[in-house]
Every structure is written in C-alpha cells, then in structure tokens.
C-alpha cells in the first residue's frame, strides 16, 4: 500500500521549525561535546577556558547562531512569497503568513542571537552549564515567533506557553542565586495564574462564536461580520480576558507586579531578552487581535485599553523614580514603555501598527545593550546592580559610561536616539487617530521618566572620593560586540530611521479571511 504524504505548506512556520530543530540538536550535541562545568565534572580541572573567552566551548553557541541564521533566511524566504502572492494562511487557517509576522520574526531572531552571544560569555564566566540555556532561548524564540503568526487562539495559547515555560526556567537559571529562585517562582506562579485567565477568555470567545479561528470560514472575523452588535457581549468579555492575559506578558499595569521581581532576579542577559522579546511577542498578538480581528469591536475595547495605557505609562514612570536597583528601575521603565506602545495600539491605524513594530524593535535593541552593560558590571552574582554602584563609572570606563548615557537618553526619548523617533512615531499615530490627550499623558510620563534616567547619568559622572569600590567591567569580545551593536543601532536608527520605518510600513499587512 502506498503511503501518500499529505501536502502541507511549511513556509509559514519554517523559522520556528528551524529553531526547534536547532534546539533539539543543541541538546543532543550538549550530551556529547558539551563542556560541563567544573562543579559537575571535578576531574575536568584546569582545562577551563578561563582566558580565551571562546575557549573550546564555541560549538554550541555557533550551532545556535546558525539556527537563528537559518530562521532569518527562512523568514526572508517567506517574505518573498507573501510579497509576490499576498498574505495567506496555512495549516487549515491556523497559521497566518503575512508581512507583519515576518517582520516580527526577523526582529525576534536578532534579539535571540544577541542573547546567545551575551549568554555565552555570561555563563562561561560564571562556570554554568550552557546547553540548556541555548536550547531554552531557541525554544522560547520559536514560541514568540509563533505568537506573531498564529491565526487561531489555540496556536496563540500554545505559543504563549512555549515561550513562557522556557522563560520561567531561564529566569531561575543561575540556581545558586536566592533572588533568582524567588524570581522564577513568582514569575511562574503568576504566569500560570494569568494563563488560566487567558484560557478562560478563549473559552468565552469560543462559547460566543463557536470557533477559535481568527480568519477561517465561520471564524471570528466572519462571525463579527454577520452578527448583530447586540449578540456580541460574551465575545467582548472574552476579549477583555485575552487583553488581560497578553497584558500580563507585556507588563501592563495592573498586571505588571511580576515584572520588577522577575527582571531583578533573572540573569541580566535573560532580563534583556525578556524585555525585548517577550514584549514584542505579546504586542504582536495584541496588535493582530485588537487592531485587525477585533477592529469592528474597537468602540468596546478601546476605552479599556486607553485606561490601561494611561495607568501603565504613569505608574511605570512614577514607580521607577524611587528605585535603587538599576535592574528594578529598568523593569519599571519597561512597564512605562509598554504603556507608550499601547498608545499605538489604540490608534488602530496602519501608522500605529508600523509605529509599534518600530518602537518595539528599537526599544529591544536598546534595552538588550543596557542589560548587557548591567551584566558586565554586576559581578558574578550580580550584586553590584544598585544605582550607587555605578558611581564613578565615567572615570573607570569612559567609553562604557558614554554608551550607557546614549542608551539612557534613548530610553528617555531624547533626540538623535532611536527612542526619540520611536516615541514620535507612536505618539504621532495616536494624535492622528484623535487621542491627543493620551499623548499629553504620555509626554508627562516621559517627563517624569527623565528624572530617573538622569539619576543614573549623574551618578555615573561623579568622581568624588567616596567611591567605596570602583565599578569594574568584566567583558570579553562578545559583550563588547553586543554593547557596541546596541549603541550603534540606537544612534544610527536615531539619525536614519526612514529605512526601518518604511520596512515596518511595508510589512504592515495581514492575512485575512
């Protein structure tokens, strides 16, 4: 009997498949060629690659990077297809293949690759196992990518869990750190808790529409087109819970409580990855859900999201002011940034969507660099992450202090940095949609935010005699490379932003029914 394999178009999730396959390969290779740390293999002894940072442990990171390279290649390939034939869906309408998802995937691959580079050096210096780390990063990026291209709430849920579970483990990766364990526990419990609400939301949407599919026949889009407004109440309530679940992932107030603790306790490369990737994935799902699928219901969900945006911007900025720990402060700042992106979500126009993509891409590049600097200055257990520990940084490492200045100015939204352009774009979209007052609130929030970025700068340039211990950066070529890249991206995108914005605009088209 002949077995005829069913024809399945894979181009839509080829990047995810490549990443998952690479992750499995990494795990497999780790078992054979992986270099176990001394603590587990005492006989290994003096052969530690302490001096050469790449040492003899370059196989796994290289493999992971190849995986990301393949993912980017496959994403570009998918781009060519959708560019030629238009957006489609695959897997019986479960996967959307459109410009939006491709843009998000490439951005995520870049974040992932940067995390691998940083993580490699971070782990080798701290003598920690590497194989699982790379595999987890690969898996979680695969999950995040799937978030962007899911056209069915089942897929969205699976993608959400895929990257969340990987992140729970990554947060507590440095097992010896008490705060790391605690962070993992808190993040996990709250994450699981919020997932159940997300699921309840899906159940309600299913109950209202009889489908979990976004675009397909009988799916949510066509349901909305054919049903009178009065019968939509269950759907609106379900959508509210979906916003709650995704709001948790992007750290929107009041679902943000995990953020400072998890960001503080996690190893800094992971924190940077969470800030950049998790936010992008969450917003990708939110943008598709709210601005495209639930667009007809915008009058129902918009007041709610405006409320979330306003509260998030204000609370994030205000709480950051009094933080003494720089990771915690950046966590609150990331909350505020989520609020700024929400102003683009409420605009519900193409400019808002492309603006949000631009915002998240530039913010990710900046924040990864900022946490890389925290990582190289933090010491082995990241105990030196208080703002005062940065005292005298300019005297000790002028160039590093200069770069940190640039990154902080970008986060504050000062011109000639990418952060300024990003704010300009999202605020512009909201103004265009007629929500000027939200932008005014955003401007006030950024004014408050200028306080705490400034505080770091002031401390850094102090050269007084009271410096208990001079900041000491421990960094190798990989960290330097990532920090340099982040700084360069922040500056270059602050000066020549048009290409990236145009790309984001070009990518703003979605699969439809």
């Amino acid at each position, binding site marked *: 009997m002949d077995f005829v394999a069913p024809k399945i178009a894979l181009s839509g999730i080829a990047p995810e498949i490549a990443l998952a396959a690479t992750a499995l390969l990494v795990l497999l290779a780790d078992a054979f060629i992986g270099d176990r740390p001394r603590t587990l293999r005492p006989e290994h002894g003096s052969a530690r690659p302490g001096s050469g940072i790449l040492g003899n442990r370059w196989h796994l990171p290289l493999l992971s990077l190849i995986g990301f390279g393949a993912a980017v290649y496959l994403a570009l390939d998918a781009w060519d297809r959708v560019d030629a034939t238009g957006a489609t869906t695959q897997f019986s309408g479960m996967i959307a293949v459109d410009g939006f998802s491709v843009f998000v995937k490439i951005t995520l691959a870049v974040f992932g690759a940067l995390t691998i580079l940083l993580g490699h050096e971070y782990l080798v210096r701290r003598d920690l196992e590497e194989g699982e780390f790379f595999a987890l990063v690969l898996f979680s990026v695969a999950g995040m990518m799937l978030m962007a291209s899911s056209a069915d709430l089942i897929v969205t849920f699976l993608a959400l869990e895929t990257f969340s579970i990987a992140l729970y483990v990554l947060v507590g990766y440095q097992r010896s750190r008490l705060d790391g364990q605690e962070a993992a526990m808190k993040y996990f419990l709250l994450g699981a808790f919020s997932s159940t609400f997300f699921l309840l939301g899906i159940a309600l949407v299913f109950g209202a529409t009889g489908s979990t599919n976004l675009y397909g026949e009988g799916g949510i889009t066509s349901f909305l087109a054919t049903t009178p407004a009065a019968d939509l109440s269950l759907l609106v309530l379900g959508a509210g*819970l979906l916003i709650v679940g995704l709001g948790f992932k992007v750290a929107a107030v009041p679902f943000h409580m995990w953020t400072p603790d998890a960001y503080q306790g996690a190893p800094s490369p992971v924190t940077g990855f969470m800030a950049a990737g998790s936010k992008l994935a969450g917003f990708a799902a939110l943008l598709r859900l709210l601005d495209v699928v639930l667009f007809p219901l915008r009058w*129902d969900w918009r007041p709610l999201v405006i409320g979330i945006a306003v509260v998030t911007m204000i609370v994030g900025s205000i709480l950051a002011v009094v933080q003494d720990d720089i990771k915690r402060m950046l966590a609150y700042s990331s909350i505020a940034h989520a609020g700024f992106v929400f102003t683009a979500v409420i605009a519900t126009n193409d400019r808002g969507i492309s603006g949000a993509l631009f915002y998240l891409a530039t913010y990710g590049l900046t924040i990864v660099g900022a946490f890389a600097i925290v990582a190289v200055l933090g010491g082995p257990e990241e105990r030196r992450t208080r703002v005062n520990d940065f005292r005298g940084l300019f005297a000790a490492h002028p160039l590093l202090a200069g770069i940190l200045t640039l990154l902080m100015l970008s986060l504050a939204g000062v011109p000639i940095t990418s952060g300024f352009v990003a704010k300009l774009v999202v605020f512009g979209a909201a103004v265009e949609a007629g929500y000027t007052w939200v932008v005014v609130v955003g401007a006030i929030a950024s004014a408050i935010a200028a306080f705490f970025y400034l505080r770091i700068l002031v401390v850094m340039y102090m050269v007084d005699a009271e410096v208990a211990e001079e900041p000491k950066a421990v960094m190798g070529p990989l960290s330097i490379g990532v920090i340099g890249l982040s700084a360069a991206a922040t500056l270059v995108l602050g000066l020549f932003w048009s290409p990236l914005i145009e790309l984001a605009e070009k990518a703003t088209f979605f699969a439809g029914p």
Partner: protein
Amino acid sequence: MTFAASTLPTDEATFAQLIFGAPLLGAVLLLFFGKRLGKLSGIIGSATVGIAFVFGVLSFMDLTSIATGHGENARVLTKSWFTWIEVGDFNVHMSLVIDQLSIVMVFVITGVGFLIHVYSIGYMSSEENYGRFFAYLNLFIAAMLLLVLGDNLLVMFIGWEGVGLCSYLLIGFWFEDRANATAAKKAFVVNRIGDFSFLLGIFLLAVSAGTLTFAGINESAVSGAIGGSMATVGALLLFGGAAGKSAQIPLYVWLPDAMAGPTPVSALIHAATMVTAGVYMVARTFPLFEAASFDVLLLVAWVGGATAVITAIVAAAEYDIKKILAYSTISQLGYMFLALGVGAYSIAIFHLVTHAFFKALMFLGSGSVMHALDGETDVRRMGGLRKVMPITGWTFMMGWLAICGIVPFSGFFSKDAILAGAWADGQYVLWGLGVATAALTAFYMSRLYLRVFEGGVVMPEGTHAHDAPPTMAAALIPLGILSLAAGALNFPGGLTFEHFLEPVLGEPEVAHGLTAWLLGGAATVVAVGGIAVAWALYLRAGGLQVRDRTERMLGPAVRAARNKLYVDRTYETLILQPGRDLAVFCTEVVDRKIIDGAVNGTGKLVAGSSELLRRLQTGYVRNYAAAFLVGVVVVFSILIVRVAA
C-alpha cells in the same frame, strides 16, 4: 512677503557645516583627550570657536555677495545633508540655513563665545577638570550653533536639547557642592517643562502644517493653510518652550539658581546665548504668531513686560553680585519679548545683540572681581575696586552705562527702539512698564556699580585684590568697546541693522520725528534719575555711617540740624521700604513660595506617590496575584457596563 519653501535639498551654504563642525570637533577632542592635553585644552577650545567665527565671516561674505535682483529673499543659503524622515508627504531634511537672522546669531555666539573662551583660560586656570570644562563649553557652542542654523524645528530642537544638556552639565560643574547639583537639577526640570511644550508644538505643527521647515510653516501661516485656532495653540506651545529656555514668568526661577556654575558659564550661557534662544525662536516663527486667531503676541508682550518689571524689583533687593546680574538678565530678556510682542522683531534681535555684549561683559567683570576677592560675591563687602583693578573697573563702567541706557552707549539705542516700538504699537501701558523697568534698571545697576567700584576701597579681610590677568583682560576690553560702540550698528537715520534683517523679520514700526525725540529724552531722563537716586542713597551711604558716629559724639542737636538725614529717612520709609517689601514679597512669596513651591511640589508629588505606590509591591506573590485579580475584576466591570449599555 514671500517665503522660499525648501523642497529640494540644496548645497549652497559652503561653510554652514564647518561653522558648527569646528567646535564639535573641539568638544570631541577635548572630551577624550582633555586630561592628556592639559593646559593646551583651553587654547584648542578657544581656537575652534575662533575658526567657527572665521567661517561665519566667510558665510557672511557669501551671503552679501548674492545678487538681490530677485527680491530680498534670494539671500538665503541652505545646506542639506540628508533626508532625515520621509513618511509619505512628510519630509524632514537635516539641513542648515544661513540667512540674515542666523548669521547675526552666529556672530554673537562665536564672537562672544570666543572671548569668553579666552577669558576662561585665565579664569579656570587653577581648575582640576580644565579639559572637561572646555569640552562642555565647546559642545555648548556647537549645540547653540545647530540651534540657530537649523532650517526646521526638529534640527532646532536637537540643538535646543543639546544646549539644555550642556547648561545642566556646566551649572553642576562643581557638583561636589550639593547646592550646585540641586541648582543644576532645578534648571533641568524647569527647562523640561518648557521643552515638552515645545515638543508638543512640533507635533502639532507637523500634523497641521505638514512640514517642519521654518519657511514652510511661515508660508502656511501667511497663506492661512494653518487655521487661526491651530496657529494659536501652536504659537502658545512654542512660546511655552521659549518661556522656559528664556526664563520668563512663570518659568524664570531656574536662572538665578543657575549662577551656581562657573562665571564664564553664566556669561556665555545664562546671559549672552542660550537664554536668548527663546527670543530667536519666536522671531523665526513670527508669522505663525501673527496668524493666531487669539492675540498670542499681546500675551508675549505682557509676559515680557511683567517679567521685566518684577525681576527688576527683585534685583534691587539682592546683595549677591551674580544674582543681581541674573535677575537683570531675566529683566532684559523680558524687554526682548516685549519687543517681539509689539511686532518689533528686528529690534528684539538688536537688543539681544547689545545685551549679549554688555551683560557678558558685566558677568565677566564680576567674575574678575570674585577671582580677585577669593570668591566673595556680597556687594556689601566690596567698594572702590576701580582703583585696585582699573581694567575691570573701567570696562564694567562701559557695561553699566550701556545697560542704564545712556547716550551713546549701545544699550540706549536698543532699549529706546523697544520703547518706541511699544509706543508706536499703541501699547501705552506696556510702554509705561518698559519705562519703569528702565528706571529700576538704572537704579539697581548703579547701586551695584557704585558700591563695588566707586567710593572708598572695601575688601574682605585677607584678600589681595589684583586686576584681571592678561587673558581675562583680553576678553574684557573688546567687550567694553563693543558695549560702547555697538549702537553704531543701528544709529537712527542709518538703521543698518534693521534693514539688514528686514528680508527675514520685516520692517518694525517705531515712532518717528518729534515723538521719537521725546521718547528718547524721557528714557534718558528716567535713566539718569535712577542713577542719581542710587548715587544719593548708596555712594553717600558709606559716608553716612561715618557721619552717624560723629553725630553720636557731638550730640543730638547737630544731628537734628542735618535735615537731609530726615529726607533720607523719608526716602527710606516712603520709597525704599515699600520697594523692599515688594521685592521681598516677590522673592519670598511669588518666587520661592508660589513658583518654586509649584515646581518642588510637583517633584514631591511624584516622589511621594512613588513611595506610596511602591508599598503595594510587597514582595509577596499572593499579593501580586490579588492585584492581578483586582485588575481582572476592574476590566470585567468596565466591559460589563459597556456591554449592558
């Protein structure tokens, strides 16, 4: 009047980027190698600014060599580097413009900037972070040049933020002292308020005018493409930014505190250049202000006039030499806004120029005094210093006479023109405010000058006053000459300066003929009166104490015979005491309580609510879950209400 819209990137202004590139290069050099270069930093810093000045002269020659056959507007040189933003029809080019207005600003910035750099070589010679100081100073010059050369609001905003940052860094230059760091922070925060207003204005204009170039905005303002109400909001927002940077009511409070920085910084940034950025901005965008349906210009004039009077009163009650000069600067900036508000734009710029000369001169002179007296700033502990330090004394006298408005010093011509402009505009109350300010100015500046430089020699014990060292003198003397002679730029009759600026700023309407003579005469009388009162009260007050002691010895009979004393007393109770009370009221209540209170209050509100909110972050995961649940309930309630409705 027509405006040339800059649609195509052009490359006419050969030297524009060199003007601002030279100090930028200097800043980068000094920032990285400042420590190694040692004393060479000062020379490099000064030289780059000097080079910028030379390029400014070359650009000026370029500009004047253009044939003016196709109307005056042909005299504009632009330089585009690249397209910065291109979103649909909306373009922003990274481009610079050299026209009559920006070249004047370039001359002021690089000219006065150069002299102040040279001065700083001597003034900061014993400073540890010598290189860093010049790096910041050069960076400031570069940013300020970018601000005035930018041909659109966004480029201007970059310069705007850049000068703000440099100002912050330089006010807090001696940040080891907590007060200085606080002052720097205050300046930064207050400026941020203005900056956000400016930024919102930029957003608004980008949306409503579809362009950010000055030419484009002005054109759509004149043609009515921007509606009257939109223009009103835009102009108000821009003016909010200008009021912050140029220290006008209610945002002036940062400037007196900013005197915590080194004196050359006060002279350069907080007198001659940065604080005038707001004046420049309003002058640049004046058609927008004129297109507003609500009379924003009148508001500008009133804010300027009120600021001028109130801060002049405060200045009269201060004893700190730098604080007096700071309040005086605010007061003079008020004059400039008054001029803008009555439509005399080129006169505002003229006063900006003369003020840059004489106020920078006086700041540098006060720096020289402080340098000589080991940092003493209290005028009550100084006296007769012209005998001890003649160069400082004589040059300061030039500045004093200029600001008092005595013929033929430069200040007379610019101030007189402002008053004449207010009169011609029919704003007689504003004219009255201006005259009152003129009298007060003459009074408090004379009080300062006479106390410090005339009369018997008074110095704090243990100081050995000496005159300014050569580099400092080298800056004082040219500025002294300019304060004396800069009026020649715009002598009545010739009015060279106004005509030069006419293509950009239009022709100001001022009083003519007999009225002009009468107004000028009135201003002079008032100025002389102010000086006379100061002379009577302060220069002779030193003698008064001596007389007092004699009287006590000789008994009450003689004392009673001295009627003049009662006159002085009457002056004291009837004029000075209420004046002082008003001044105290302005300083203590209006300035410290209301305005400072509002600023500090905002800060406290943020910090306080932050302290309160962070208590919610208890660290207990169950509380986090509870907060999450509260959020869910709120979301659900909102949606249920929404659905039910």
